[in-house]
């Protein structure tokens, strides 16, 4: 029950972060370019590069519970074979 709620928490956290990234990308495109960068295109390129680490973190966070359940499944399978 708690595990399900925790997973739901992660799903909603990811949805919120991805929404935030989307809002930031839209804001970047209408900003007309950041100070020190020439034009919207360079600013969008900067935004794309900067958002890569956070996307990797979200991806890893999602991957982690799957790995754990795989390990659990292997352990359960091992027990079943031994029985």
């Amino acid at each position, binding site marked *: 029950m*708690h595990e399900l*709620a*925790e997973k*739901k*928490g*992660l*799903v*909603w*956290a990811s*949805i*919120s*972060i991805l*929404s*935030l990234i989307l*809002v*930031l990308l839209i*804001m*970047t495109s*209408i*900003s*007309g*370019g*950041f*100070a*020190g*960068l020439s034009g919207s295109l360079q*600013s969008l390129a*900067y*935004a794309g590069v*900067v*958002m890569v*680490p*956070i996307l990797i*973190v*979200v991806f*890893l*966070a999602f991957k*982690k*519970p799957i790995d754990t359940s795989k390990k659990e499944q292997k352990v359960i399978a091992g027990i079943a074979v031994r029985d």
Partner: protein
Amino acid sequence: MILSPVYPLIVEVCFYGIFAGALYATMQRYGTRVSLVLLTGATLWSTSIENFIVLNGGYDYYGYATRNFPGYMAWVGVVPLWIILGWFSMTALSYILTDVLLPGRSPYLRSLLAASISLNIDLLLDPIAVSTGLWRWTHPSVYVLGVPLTNWVGWFAIVYFFVFAFDTMVIRKPMVGRPVLDIRRVEWQKALTPFLKRLLLLAPIVLLGTLAVMMLLAPYSNLPGPYRNVFPAPFGWWS
């Protein structure tokens, strides 16, 4: 570039939506009580620090203000409400990701990852905000993409110490230093007081540290003044 006066209102509403998502995510993962403790701590922490820096001439939120309308719908002192709730959202979301990726690890390491994730988001948010006038930096410093380096150092420190306090005083049992077995059964009154006490203890470190970095960078400022702020002397350091 100042855009239409509707722009800051749309941003404000978007951030209220993101806040709702972040709060719901926190409630799903940690339960209502701990989420309220986190929300209370984050609100008090960010409201105090933000208002303190604005009143001392660090930056302001009046890029879209007119005689009849301050630019945003809701304010907490001299800081828009969406900034306070946005700070909670970014910190809570960073903490959830950290909790998934580094379960049971040292609070120093967890705080480091959470602060890095928040800083990562701010590396994009701040240049956007500056270029569209959502807020205006008004102190001498080394500016990169229109943002003073002080901001990023301060941002990292503010999130780091907040997460450290939350992780050590609420998520882990203060006496044994281990994660609590059932976070949903935490008594919020018992968790909130030590959490706020620790925040109160850490606040001077954050403020004095950020001030020291400000002073250190000021002589190397690459943005010529004058630094016009709506809160000039006696509270402004350099106006």
